C-alpha cells in the first residue's frame, strides 16, 4: 500500500526563518504546502547570536514577507556597532557602525523562541489556506525514495509523506542534506561554534547602562587576548529586557586548544569591560549553543538534488566573515528564492527544473557572492599560508608594527580598514586578525578599564540544570568510544567539560584485566543538539524525536 502515502505539492522541513520564508512564498504562490517542525514550537530548537538583517540588495526580506515582523517579533534595533580590541585590561574600541550599516535596510536583535514562534503562527495561517499547514513535534528523519529518486520525506511520528518539492530548512545539522549526500560533517575548520547566555536586566537598566532610549539598541563585539588564543570573538546585543552575550569560535581552534566553550564565555562575562553593563547582580536566564557553518568554505554552490532544495544553515548559507555575522537574512532570501523557483518551474510545467532555477537565482541575486566572496578564495591562498601568518604576527608585534598601528589610527586608516567590506571579506582564518592584531591594537592604543567586574556566572551543572528537557531515547550513538577518536568532544562540547561528570561526554579511565583504557562515555540527557560532537567525535548523530530533547525558551 506504499502508494497511499499522503501527498502535498510542497513539504518544508523546519520552521526557522528559512523554512518560514519558503513556506510563506510557496503559499503566496498558491502551492499546497505542509511545514514540519520537530520542536514543541518553532524556535524551541533554535539559538542564534541574535541579529537579523534586512539587506538593501536582497530580493526578499523577512519583514517584506511577514508584515509587522519588526514591531511584533524582534527585540531592539542594533543602531550602533562597536568592536572592542582587548589586551588584558586595555581596550581599544573601534566604531564599526558604518560597516554595519553598509547595504543594511535595518538590523534588529531577536530571541528565537519569540521570533520563530511568531513566524509559526503566520506560516500556519498562510499554508492552511493552501490546503496544508504546519505541524510541530514531527521529526523528519530522512528522504523517501522511489527507484532511487527523491519523492518525499520519512518521519519518526508520521507515515512517509510525498511531495513535488522538498525544502530542507532543517538547520545546521540537516539530516536531509546528509541523506542526499550534499553535506558532510567531517572537517572542524569548516565550522564555528557559538555559545550564548541570555542575561536578565532589571527594568530600565538597559536604557541607563547603555545610555539609549527604549526603542534603541546596540551591538558590541569583542576580540583580542580574552580567549586563551582561541580564534574567535565575543558579542553582546541588547534585547528588550535582556542581553544576549555570546562567544563564537572556529571549531578547529577550539579543538586544538582543548578549550572549554563555557569557560571562554565566562572569560568574556567576567571581563572588567562588561562590568558597566552587567552591574552587580547577574542573573542568567538561559545557556545555549549552536554550530555555525562557515559559508566561505561550505556554502553549497548547487544546493539541490532532484526534488530536494536546501536553504539556510542546511546549505551552509551562514556568512561569518570577521565581525560580520549574517545567517538568518540569507536563509530568508534562499528560502523565498527556492519557493519562487518551484512556483516558476511549476508554472512552466516542468517541476524538475526547480532546483536548477534555484541555484541560478542564488547566483544572479548575488547571494552566492556574499556567502563565498570570490576575493576571499584568492586571498586565502596567501592569507592562510602558515609562513605568511607567522610573518604577519612578527610584523604586528614588532616595534615597527606597533608604530604602524599608531600611524594607522592617526590617519584614520584603521577605522576605514575595519569599516571596509572588502577588507573584512578577505580576512584570513588565522590567529592574525582574530587574536594577534586586536591584542596588539588593545596594547598599543587601548585605554585601561578600571571597573571591577564582580559577577559570578553559574557553573556548567547549573546551566544544564536550568534548561528544559524532555528526555527521549538517546539520539546520538558513540561509534568509537576511545579517547583518541572521540575525546575532543569532552572539552569542545558546550555542555561537557574535563572532570565534570554531569555533561554529555565524560572521559573515563577503565581498568580491564589489569590494563587501563582511556574511554569516553556519552549521556545525551544534557544535550543541546548543537552538533559539535558530530564533527569532533566519532558518532552516529541524529536529532531526537519530535518534541523530545532540549527546549529553549529564549533561543
Amino acid at each position, binding site marked *: 500500500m506504499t502508494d497511499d502515502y499522503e501527498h502535498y505539492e510542497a513539504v518544508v522541513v523546519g520552521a526557522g526563518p528559512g523554512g518560514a520564508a519558503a513556506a510563506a512564498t510557496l503559499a503566496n504562490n498558491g502551492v499546497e504546502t505542509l511545514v514540519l517542525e520537530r520542536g514543541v514550537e518553532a524556535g524551541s530548537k533554535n539559538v542564534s547570536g541574535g541579529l537579523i538583517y534586512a539587506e538593501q540588495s536582497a530580493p526578499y526580506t523577512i519583514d517584506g514577507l511577514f508584515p509587522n515582523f519588526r514591531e511584533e517579533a524582534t527585540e531592539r534595533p542594533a543602531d550602533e556597532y562597536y568592536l572592542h580590541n582587548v589586551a588584558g585590561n586595555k581596550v581599544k574600541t573601534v566604531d564599526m557602525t558604518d560597516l554595519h550599516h553598509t547595504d543594511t535596510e535595518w538590523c534588529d536583535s531577536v530571541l528565537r523562541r519569540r521570533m520563530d514562534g511568531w513566524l509559526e503562527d503566520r506560516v500556519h495561517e498562510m499554508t492552511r489556506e493552501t490546503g496544508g499547514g504546519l505541524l510541530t513535534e514531527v521529526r523528519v528523519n530522512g528522504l523517501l525514495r522511489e527507484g532511487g529518486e527523491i519523492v518525499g520525506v520519512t518521519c519518526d511520528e508520521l507515515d512517509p509523506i510525498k511531495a513535488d518539492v522538498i525544502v530542507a530548512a532543517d538547520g545546521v545539522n540537516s539530516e536531509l542534506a546528509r541523506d542526499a549526500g550534499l553535506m558532510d560533517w567531517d572537517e572542524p575548520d569548516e565550522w564555528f561554534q557559538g555559545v550564548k547566555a541570555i542575561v536578565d536586566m532589571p527594568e530600565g537598566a538597559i536604557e541607563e547602562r547603555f545610555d539609549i532610549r527604549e526603542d534603541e539598541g546596540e551591538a558590541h563585539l569583542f576580540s583580542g587576548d580574552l580567549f586563551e588564543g582561541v580564534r574567535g570573538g565575543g558579542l553582546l546585543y541588547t534585547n528588550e529586557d535582556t542581553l544576549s552575550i555570546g562567544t563564537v569560535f572556529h571549531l578547529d581552534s577550539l579543538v586544538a586548544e582543548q578549550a572549554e566553550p563555557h569557560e571562554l564565555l565566562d572569560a568574556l562575562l567576567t571581563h572588567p569591560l562588561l562590568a558597566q553593563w552587567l552591574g552587580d547582580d547577574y542573573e542568567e536566564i538561559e545557556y545555549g549553543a549552536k554550530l555555525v557553518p562557515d559559508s566561505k568554505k561550505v556554502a553549497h554552490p548547487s544546493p539541490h538534488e532532484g526534488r530536494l532544495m536546501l536553504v539556510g544553515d542546511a546549505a551552509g548559507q551562514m556568512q561569518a566573515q570577521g565581525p560580520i555575522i549574517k545567517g538568518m537574512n540569507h536563509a530568508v532570501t534562499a528560502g523565498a528564492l527556492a519557493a519562487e523557483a518551484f512556483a516558476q518551474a511549476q508554472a512552466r510545467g516542468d517541476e524538475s527544473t526547480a532546483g536548477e532555477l534555484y541555484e541560478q537565482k542564488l547566483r544572479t541575486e548575488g547571494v552566492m557572492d556574499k556567502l563565498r566572496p570570490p576575493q576571499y578564495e584568492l586571498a586565502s591562498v596567501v592569507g592562510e599560508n602558515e609562513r605568511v601568518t607567522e610573518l604577519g604576527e612578527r610584523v604586528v608585534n614588532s616595534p615597527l608594527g606597533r608604530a604602524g598601528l599608531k600611524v594607522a589610527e592617526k590617519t584614520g586608516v584603521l577605522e576605514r580598514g575595519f569599516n571596509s567590506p572588502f577588507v573584512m571579506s578577505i580576512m584570513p582564518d588565522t590567529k592574525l586578525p582574530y587574536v594577534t592584531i586586536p591584542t596588539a591594537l588593545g596594547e598599543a592604543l587601548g585605554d585601561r578599564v578600571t571597573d571591577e567586574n564582580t559577577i559570578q556566572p553559574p557553573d556548567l551543572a*547549573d546551566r544544564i*540544570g536550568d534548561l528544559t528537557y524532555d528526555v527521549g531515547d538517546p539520539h546520538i550513538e558513540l561509534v568509537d568510544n576511545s579517547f583518541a577518536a572521540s575525546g575532543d568532544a569532552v572539552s569542545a562540547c558546550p555542555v561537557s567539560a574535563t572532570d565534570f561528570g554531569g555533561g554529555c561526554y*565524560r572521559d573515563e579511565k577503565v581498568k580491564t584485566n589489569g590494563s587501563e583504557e582511556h574511554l569516553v562515555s556519552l549521556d545525551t*540527557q544534557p544535550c543541546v543538539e548543537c552538533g559539535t560532537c558530530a564533527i569532533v567525535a566519532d558518532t552516529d548523530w541524529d536529532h531526537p524525536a519530535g518534541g523530545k530533547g532540549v527546549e529553549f525558551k529564549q533561543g
Partner: protein
Amino acid sequence: MPDIDPTDHEIADLGPKIKDVEDVQELEEMLALEKGGEDRVPVKTLIEDRIEKLSGEEETVDPSEVDLADQTVADIANLVREVDDGDVLRDMLEREKDGKDRKSAKEQIESRIDSVEGSDEDESEDLEYVPPEEKHPDLDHPTADKQWVHAIEDGVYEDMWVYCETQQGDLINVSKEMLGKARGLMDEYNEEYDADEQVIAVLIGDSVEELAEVCIAYGADVVVYLEDDRLSRFRHKSYTEIFCDMARGAGHPYGRADRPEEDWRDYDEPRYTVFPATNNGRDLSALVQGELDSGLASDCSDLFIESAMISNPAKTGRPGEKKEFDRILHMKRPDFSGFEYSTILCIDKPFREFHPQGASVIPGSFDLPDPDPEREGEIVEHEMPLDDEWFRVEVTDFDQLDSGVDLSGNDVVVALGRGIGDDPTEGIELGLDLVDQFEDADLGLSRGVITASYQFAGHVEQYVGMDRQIGESGQVVEPDVYIAAGISGAVQHKVGMDESDTIIAINTDPEADIVDFSDYFIEGDLFDVLPELTESLEKGELDVKALADGGNTTDD
C-alpha cells in the same frame, strides 16, 4: 469537592485525567485545591488550559442565527455537522443563496439535509439478503476452518465479559483495572437502559478458583472459571476454545452440541468483551473475536457506552439513510503514535451481527479500583471436555523476564554516583554491603553511573541498569533515609530524591551541590566511608534510624 484532587496525583497522571473532565466548575475547584496545596505551575497550567478549552467551546456559533457570509466554506461544513434539524438547514441554505451564494457552501448544506432526512425513496422496501458467496461468485470465500461467516439469527446478547489474566497465581493489575471500569460502565448502562446486565469475569488457568473472590471484590457479578493443570501457562489454542465455549450459550448454532443450559444466563453471546492488551491478552482477544465472527478494537485507552447516529450505507442498508444504533461500546484508541485518537465502533449490519463488541485495553488506562471485600457475586465452574489436540504445543521451559526494580517503597535507599569511578565494581559491592544492613533497603544509581563506560565484574553487573536510576528520567523516591555516595547532586538527580526524610551525603568535595540539600554531610571518599558505615551498623554502634529521627530536630 471535585472527583479528582490534583494534589493527590503526579503531573504525568493528571494530564489524561483532566482531559476527561467536562465541568468548568469542577475544574475551578481543582485549580483552587492545587493553589492551596502543592501549587505546581505545570498543574495549574494544565487545568487552566482545560478551562479555557471548555469555555472556548461554549462560544460556538448558533447555526440558525449566524451570518454565513462571515464563515468560510470549511466553517460551514463544520457547522452543519452539528445540525440535525432539516428546517434549520433549509433556512441556512436560503440565507446562503441570498448572501454569498457559494456553490461549495450550498453543497455542504444540501448534503447535510440529505443525510439527516434521508432521500425520498420508499422506505418500506425490504432489503434482500444475498449471501456474499452468491453476490461475488468470482471470489474464493472459504477460510481455513469455516466455510463462511453467518450471523446467528435473532441472537440475544447480554453482559460485559472481562478476561482476567493472571501471572504467577495473581490477577495482574490491568485485570483489576478492567473490572473496575466494567463495573462503572455496566452500572451506568443498567440505569440508562433500565436493564440488569452484569459484569462477568473469566478466569482460565491452573489454580484460579481462589482468585474468583478477588474478581468479585473488584466488581464482577459472576466469575466463570476453568482449572486444569495443563493450563498453567497461556496457550492460545486451548484458551481460545475454552473462552469461546464459555461465551456461547446453550443451543448456539456454532457452539458445542451438548453444552448444557445454565441458570445464571439466558443469552447466546456476550454483548461486550474486554481483554487486556498484554502479550497474551492481545493473542487471545484476536482469536476469540475471530472465532465469534466479530471485530476487535485493539489497544484501547478508553471505553464508553452510548448510542451512535450512523449514515454508512453498509450499516444502515440504505444509502442516504441515517439510523441510530444504541448500546454501542465506543472504543477509543491512540493513532499516529498517539497524535490522534480514533473511536472504533463495532456495529451490526443487515443480515450480519457483530457481537460481542470487543476491545483490548492498554494496561494503566483505567484507575486501579479499591477492592470491596464485602461485595457478593456468583462463582461458576465451567465444565467442558478438553481436547488433547489443544495441548499439542508443550511448554518445556520458560524464563521470567526481569520486571525491573521498584525503589520507591524502601525505608532506606543507598545511591551511588560517579564517585565509584576509580573502582566501579568495588563501589557497587560496598553499596550492596551497606544495603544489607537494613531490613528494607535497596540500591539506587545516578544517571552518570548507568551511562558511563565503566566495566563491572559479572557478579555486580546485574545491579547496574536503567531500572535503578534515580532522578528526572528515572525513579522518584522518598525513603526515610537516602544515602548518596559520590553523587554531586545535579538538579536532575535532586528531583528524584529531595523529598526523602533524611538525606546523608558522602562526597570528597565539600562544595558539591548535594551538600546544600543534605541533612548530614560526610566529607570523604566513599571507598573509606561506606565500609566504616557498614561496620558500625554491623556492630550496632550506629543507629541510622535514630539519626534520621534526630535529623528533624538538629538540622545539619
